[in-house]
């Protein structure tokens, strides 16, 4: 059966003279989501119309075909993270995995304690879940981060007490790409007998994420951050040394060893599996290439512009991430000027509160610089030519907007902006 799929082409208007041979708009926001790898799509297709059976249908070949696809995927994911297949649970995505891990432990281990430790820079899927548990009477410690974005292990040590049942710290931050000292955190938690969950959404498939080498007990995985489909993810749940138990948050049929009921998203799972297999094979070479492109972007921009500041540690960072604040230029206006490039900003002009990124705030970055930040997420399909184009467009737009900026003018006149009494400060 022919499965003629029309893969939509990106728009190809090249209205900028420097964009020769580059398809516009350029996508460089791979922390938000990623385009699907064509090999993943190809792997998924048979499971929509041919092998469409419910993986839980025990009694016929349609079900068995679905089950086979699922189990193959399960093996691939387990292999990528160093787990056994029995330890991989499928969910609708990392947000659900985070909810299941945190709420699941909280409820199951309630007799043992009610204290959870996390960090201020976690994704909302973790923070909001913790906030909800606080309403139910759990105590949550939100560890601060240092200027480079990393937690202080001493803070973690001090925070742990005999009522601590869970530590949840993300492996790689989605905004600044910073990598937490997961191995050390895992070691500490193992010594103290505390369950360690890590939201590894941005890390899996990009850097080595072995659950045993790092003493991880629970790990959230997302499909659409690694060139797989949206709407599917997984949760690693340790079975040995120690065995971690979870209370399910979704009831109804007892699928996935009773931990996550609901008919499996077979095509999605198959896609996630394939994405993991590709990542495993290509990781070493790809992460090297990503770092090269990222450093090229960074150097090209930083060599041309003054008063541009990188947010977060460069040493402990995802290879494809870059987050820069451009002083005196507001982030959203910068995005508007590079509207043929997809990136994102720490400015929250469109949010109700006018508050900028809480992650940048946690680093101690002033609100004005937080408003001036751009996050670049380089991915598998970005090229060197695209990186150069993006760098040049960012440079020219920053320069243009600085001409428009009263702050730049004041700074050039030698005024210290921190000493100014701003009319709008009372708000």
């Amino acid at each position, binding site marked *: 059966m022919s499965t003629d799929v029309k893969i939509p082409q990106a728009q190809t208007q090249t209205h900028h003279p420097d964009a020769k041979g580059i398809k516009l708009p350029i996508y460089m926001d791979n922390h938000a989501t990623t385009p699907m790898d064509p090999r993943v799509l190809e792997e998924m297709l048979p499971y929509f119309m041919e092998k469409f059976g419910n993986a839980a249908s025990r009694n016929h070949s349609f079900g068995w075909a679905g089950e086979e696809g699922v189990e193959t995927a399960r093996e691939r994911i387990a292999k990528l993270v160093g787990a056994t297949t029995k330890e991989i649970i499928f969910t609708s995505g990392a947000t659900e995995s985070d909810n299941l891990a945190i709420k699941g432990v909280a409820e199951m281990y309630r007799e043992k304690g009610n204290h959870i430790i996390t960090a201020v820079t976690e994704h909302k899927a973790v923070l909001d879940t913790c906030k909800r548990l606080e309403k139910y009477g759990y105590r949550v410690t939100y560890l601060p981060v240092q200027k480079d974005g990393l937690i202080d292990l001493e803070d973690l040590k001090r925070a742990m007490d005999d009522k601590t049942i869970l530590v949840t710290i993300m492996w790689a931050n989605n905004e600044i790409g910073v990598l937490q000292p997961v191995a050390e955190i895992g070691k500490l938690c193992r010594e103290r007998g505390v369950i360690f969950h890590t939201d590894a959404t941005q890390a899996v498939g990009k850097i080595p994420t072995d659950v045993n080498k790092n003493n991880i007990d629970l790990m959230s995985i997302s499909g659409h951050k690694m060139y797989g489909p949206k709407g599917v993810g997984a949760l690693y749940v340790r079975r040995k040394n120690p065995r971690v138990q979870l209370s399910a948050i979704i009831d109804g049929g007892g699928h996935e060893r009773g931990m996550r009921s609901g008919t499996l998203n077979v095509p999605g799972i198959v896609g996630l599996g394939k994405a993991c297999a590709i990542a495993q094979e290509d990781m070493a070479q790809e992460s090297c290439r990503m770092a090269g492109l990222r450093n090229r972007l960074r150097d090209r921009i930083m060599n041309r512009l003054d008063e541009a500041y990188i947010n977060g540690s460069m040493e402990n960072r995802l290879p494809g991430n870059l987050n820069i604040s451009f002083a005196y230029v507001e982030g959203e206006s910068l995005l*508007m000027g590079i509207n043929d490039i997809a990136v994102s900003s720490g400015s929250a002009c469109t949010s109700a509160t006018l508050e900028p990124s809480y992650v940048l705030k946690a680093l101690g970055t002033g609100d*004005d610089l937080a408003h001036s930040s751009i996050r670049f997420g380089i991915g598998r399909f970005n090229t060197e030519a695209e990186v150069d184009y993006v760098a040049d467009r960012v440079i020219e737009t920053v320069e243009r907007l600085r001409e428009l900026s009263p702050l730049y003018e004041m700074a050039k006149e030698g005024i210290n902006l921190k000493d100014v009494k701003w009319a709008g400060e009372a708000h």
Partner: protein
Amino acid sequence: MSYSDKVIDHYNNPRNVGSLDKASSDVGTGLVGAPECGDVMKLQIKVNRDTNVIEEAKFKTFGCGSAIASSSLATEWVKGKTVDEALAIKNMDIVKELSLPPVKIHCSVLAEDAIRAAIGDWKKKQESAKPVSVEAAK
């Protein structure tokens, strides 16, 4: 969130970007907003002391596309108006002209504040120079 064509036009072709001589007695300077909020507008006017007509207006803005457009539009609108006519400009006029969505209304408010601040500054300068001008008018 997509911007209206007018906002994009002002962003790509801002009107009256620049500065006037802050020290001049004919110039009123309004500086409103705060960097922490992500919005700072500087609006300056040059007023003809005999006719009270705003002959020149310049702006500089640190803020999103809507903020830049609002202040650019403000300089366009005040030029040629008397100071009192300029005071009648309301932020909702800016919202309508630029088709600003609800989340961006605060940009238009800031632009209105900037106009008022510039006029206020100019008026203050005229107050302190009053004896001279009263004599000259005689």
